């Protein structure tokens, strides 16, 4: 029984630690029903946070089947969308209310070695 409680405590501790771990942020603007930038490059196998600022006077819905995300961004407001960890590749997204203009993609790449490593 003590082992079970210990294991549960450990799992919960790791879980809490994962909550507090820093997640890299990427900022995207939505203006005139267009995403800026429309291509976002992120590292592979890492969770990141997309913060989307909707500067239009109408709501938009971020939608992506390949990213498995669906989120409403209210007018003149911002929304946070967590994505990843993902395998390298290109993942499309679009705005459901303006699917012809509000389009973009997330490019997932392996991180290039830092210059320090090269030296």
């Amino acid at each position, binding site marked *: 029984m003590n082992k079970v409680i210990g294991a549960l405590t450990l799992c*919960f501790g790791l*879980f*809490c630690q*994962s*909550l507090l771990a820093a997640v890299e942020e990427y900022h995207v603007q939505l203006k005139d029903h267009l995403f800026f930038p429309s291509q976002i490059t992120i590292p592979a196998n890492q*969770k990141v946070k997309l913060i989307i600022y909707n500067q239009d006077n109408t*709501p938009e*819905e971020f939608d992506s*089947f390949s990213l*498995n*995300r*669906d*989120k*409403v961004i*209210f007018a003149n407001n911002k929304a*946070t*969308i*967590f*994505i*990843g960890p993902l*395998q390298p590749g290109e993942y499309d997204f679009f705005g*459901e*209310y303006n699917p012809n203009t509000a389009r973009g993609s997330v490019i997932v790449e392996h991180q290039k070695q830092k210059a320090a490593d090269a030296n």
Partner: protein
Amino acid sequence: MKTIFRISIALLYCLFSISISRADGIQVDKVYHPYVLANERELEWRFTSRQNDDGNVLAQRFAYGHAVSEYVTIEGYIVGERDDIGDFGLQAYELEVRWMLTDQGELWADWGMLFELEKQHKEDIYEFTSGLLFEKEFTQTSLTINALLVYEWGQNIQDEFETEFRLKYRYRYLPALQPSIEIYTGEDFIGIGPGFMGVHRYQGQKQLKWELAFIAGLNGDSKDHTLRFALEYEF
């Protein structure tokens, strides 16, 4: 920290509910995802047909749902069932609240809670269901688990706690076709079978979702099959 507190409460609740006996009735129903989409309204129709040694039990549910915030949605149901003499009629009313505890992808897995209050038509039978909704992505697949605690009470029923467990492991192959394996457990019932779901998008937030599953009971009856079908129009 607020998220940690919410999840702690939900996990403690789940541990408590595991120790209670399991549920009877029709256990094959929807496997709930823990997500709520702001501004979402929906009309829903569910159809369940269970064929076993005792005959056929047919149930249909008609519902209207509305997201009241980014994290909470409320849905009202009218339930119809075929009775012992073969007549199909109004059976129950139900109110359901779904609460998204964490943003999708925020934590290692996504968490939500479900609360349902059901009243049998013309009978003094009430049922309150509450439970934990869990979903975890593994690349292109998603594992969804519902651990539910049910309390039944009233003049026409024995007061008791029960539990139900539902599981769906889904492959997100295409928006219109997502095959899955579903597992259901309740009192004297364990069922497993293939399922399918899909989404067809219209303009804006409008979309039609469908679900179909065929669950075979493994609880010992020589024949025990359940077909479930659901249509949801979101707008």
